[in-house]
């Protein structure tokens, strides 16, 4: 029955329409159109797939039945972070990214895509303002992908192959970077030297200085660090890099840049980081997006693998947008281009542009101050829980490393108890008795107290 009906997604599946189209070609069936494919290549029967749910009411029931079996952390009380965070997404952002004009297409002409290209340009413009850098590429897949590309940029710029990286880095991010650093050609391989960090993930500049030499292509640090520490050695690390002729690469979460000094003022050569925190939900990991930014210097511009959206003019003198240095992308030069590009996370550029415009300078200052204060409040409150040690020395932003060694409990058991008995998603396990808990503007003091009370009960 269902097969004889036209499929709702396919207007030409109406029997009369299809027959008329076939008739135009002098055919009664489509089989002759597949003559290029040898019979021996052809699948003889339809693959065995689950039955079609062509009725939206049935499909919707099925999908929501699946969704009912999820318990999204962000819908309750969660302290999961570690590279993808629960931040508030303003309603306006959700409305804009849901606009069909932005949601569903891919490429048009510079004129038919004009509005979208302007949004993209406002993304790079506003992100550049936060970073204190004037050249910003269109987004890449993630912070890890951005760092991987940046390391390769640094290697090409310096002709060297060693990158100093903080040992306390997100393992997810590092696993992605390793793919970019490795090479089938041993001579092209990037060696990553893991440098020691303190309890909040901050590098030891003296140790970095001892590791840096004439083989060093770049020194990479993160601000805030994976374990929450603000990188107080930023200026010193840039000086060390400059001394050995290496690049300084900083991984940064732009959300903190209303209160924290931007990479452009810290001697950073290449900044990378996430755009997920700028108005994108976590989406089970699908909210990630990354960026690459530098000074507006042709030497750096020539190494970008990303597409670059520049302001330009129309024939009648209006402002418009066009892709610059397209020839150096993989679209322009295939294997001779800089790494590769393709579909990326461009819808999140739309989200981030809207988010940055909503916050403005005062909003970024406020959210930065709020997260600093909430993190400090949490550090103080959690330090009072018997069996918990909190690493929070010297300035921390959003993440706290909790050590449960003194309690005798392990993270897995603690998190299970927090979830089962208190409905709380605990932090990410860093070691069997250490976990990283994230505190954002979504956690008010009452919810932090709720965590403190729950942990006190669980660890008792």
């Amino acid at each position: 029955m269902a097969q004889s009906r036209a499929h709702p997604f396919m207007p030409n599946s109406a029997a009369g329409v299809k027959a008329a189209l076939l008739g135009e070609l002098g055919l009664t069936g489509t089989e002759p159109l597949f003559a290029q494919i040898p019979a021996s290549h052809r699948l003889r029967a339809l693959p065995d797939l689950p039955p079609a749910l062509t009725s939206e009411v049935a499909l919707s029931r099925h999908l929501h039945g699946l969704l009912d079996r999820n318990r999204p952390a962000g819908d309750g009380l969660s302290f999961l972070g570690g590279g993808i965070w629960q931040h508030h997404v303003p309603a306006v952002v959700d409305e804009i990214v849901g606009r069909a004009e932005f949601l569903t297409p891919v490429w048009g002409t510079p004129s038919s895509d004009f509005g979208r290209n302007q949004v993209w340009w406002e993304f790079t413009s506003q992100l550049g303002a936060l970073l204190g850098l004037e050249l910003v590429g269109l987004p890449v897949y993630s912070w890890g992908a951005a760092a991987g590309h940046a390391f390769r940029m640094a290697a090409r710029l310096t002709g060297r192959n060693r990158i100093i990286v903080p040992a306390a880095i997100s393992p997810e991010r590092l696993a992605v970077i390793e793919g970019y650093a490795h090479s089938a050609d041993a001579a092209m391989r990037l060696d990553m030297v893991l440098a020691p960090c303190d309890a909040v993930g901050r590098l030891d500049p003296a140790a970095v200085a001892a590791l840096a030499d004439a083989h060093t292509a770049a020194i990479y640090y993160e601000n805030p660090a994976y374990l929450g520490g603000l990188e107080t050695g930023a200026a010193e690390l840039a000086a060390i890099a400059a001394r050995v002729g290496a690049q300084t690469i900083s991984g940064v979460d732009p959300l903190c840049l209303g209160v924290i000094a931007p990479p452009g003022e810290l001697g950073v050569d290449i900044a990378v980081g996430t755009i997920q925190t700028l108005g994108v939900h976590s989406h089970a990991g699908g909210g990630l997006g990354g960026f690459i930014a530098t000074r507006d210097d042709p030497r750096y511009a020539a190494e970008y693998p990303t597409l670059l959206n520049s302001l330009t003019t129309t024939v009648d003198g209006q402002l418009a947008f066009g892709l610059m240095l397209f020839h150096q992308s993989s679209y322009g030069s295939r294997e001779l281009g800089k790494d590769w590009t393709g579909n990326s996370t461009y819808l999140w550029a739309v989200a981030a542009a809207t988010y940055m415009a909503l916050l403005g300078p005062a909003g970024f200052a406020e959210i930065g101050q709020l997260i600093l204060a909430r993190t400090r409040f949490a550090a103080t409150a959690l330090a009072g829980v018997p069996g918990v040690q909190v690493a929070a020395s010297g300035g921390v932003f959003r993440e706290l490393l909790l050590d449960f060694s003194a309690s005798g409990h392990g993270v897995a058991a603690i998190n299970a108890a927090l979830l089962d008995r208190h409905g709380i998603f605990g932090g990410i396990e860093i070691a069997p008795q250490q976990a990283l808990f994230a505190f954002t503007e979504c956690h008010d003091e009452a919810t932090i107290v709720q965590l403190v009370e729950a942990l006190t009960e669980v660890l008792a």
Partner: protein
Amino acid sequence: MTLRRYHAARWDEPLIHQIGAPGRRGQHFPPADAAGLVPAGLQRQTPPDLPELSEPEVLNHYLRLSQQTMGMIGVSLFGTCTMKYNPRVGEQAARRLAGIHPAQPAETMQGLLAAVHGLDLILRGLSGMDRFTFQAAGGADAAWTQAVITRAYHAARGQGQQRTKIITSLQSHPCNPATAATAGFEVITLPLGENGYPSLDMLKAALGPDTAALMINNPDDMGVYNPEIMEWVRLVKQAGALAFYDHANFNGVMTKIRAADLGFDACMFMLHKTFGVSKGGGGPAVGAYGCTAELAPFMPGPLVVEEDGAYRLETPPQQAAKVREYLGNLQQVFKAYAWARAMGAEGLAEASDLSVLLNNYMEMRLLTLRGVTRSHPGQTSPRLEMTRYSLGTLFDETGISAVEVQNRMADFGIDAFWLSHEPWIVPQPFTPEAGEMWSREDIDYWIDVLAHVIDEAYRDPDHVRRAPHNQVVAKLSDRDINDPANWATTWAAWQRKLA
């Protein structure tokens, strides 16, 4: 033939930095005392130069910019990208995944993992492969997945030093040679023979003990299917190399062929193209990468494993490298699952039939237009999902280029067609892809508009050359934005260069 009197919205909307007023706010956060919490030397000294706007100003600004984007409200036959209907039921339902953190316990996202596993099974059915990962964040990232798995596979067999070359063809998507080169392989690009695909002899000459893999599209984006592909794969595997099938152009052959049946070791599908997921203007996307059991231990993890109706995550033992953090763009995987369930096997077969039927219908009409030819005229069998056309004759006779035709077509609500990947193998290429979402009336309208523009090109070429006329803005000037003095990706750079 009555063409639509389309005209783009034209708001003359300023740049975001040019609007607003000091002190305006778009979001408040509870005030907090952060005195002394930023270490010395790390405080921001001057506020970022961001616009100051109220919430309704931001909303209206971006709504206006959305209206100044034609998108899929016009007719877009952007070839190679397989423009699809994105079922709103999936888009709507996937919003309930927004709050899921990828590191939350598997037991708390069983429904999502069931959909991921469900799509894995559907793709296994369509490809014959043994397992899929959805970590790759686009088609190029899936090609990258192949490149890193190739590296790890040969290294594990002690042949990492020896197998240094990846073979592809001139008609493969640029991401194949580009990811191969990034992974450290030397790229060998085979030229095309007269039928539109490289000859077996060319392949044989390129193959050797140093071959690591073949990365190939079939059919390619000219709708040409290489009938010798099984022999290709046999020879590649005989040489000890891997055979990877870039299924970017799967739409025309869904349910007709299976990559594993042809002997391939691995393949990839683009969920944001073939499987009905919204494209977002270029992602978030998914390159679903599938491979045989032999390669599965090298796949990037974690993968979803089903046991007695429960789902858990498992990292393959010899994971080559991760290609994206966590499990990938799972909200998009969920949408693809929704689309595939709405289609079923019969629906997929119908979509394949219709996309090839409509391409051939278009071809019949387009080749009657003055100035239009197609690539490889000797290849007389019907093309599959696309045909590569040339406006070279039109250009020679009128001076009007394919880009100028594209600009003029937009005046009638027709968004850009695809030209061609580099390198161009015909002059002034254009490559529409009909797909299954557009009605016959849409397709006829598209052709009518092209016919009209071609007619204009012969009658009044200047009118076409000056196009677009009905768009938000006129065409770009010849200002050289590859000149550092002119380019500007940010407001700050623009202001400095204006000064």
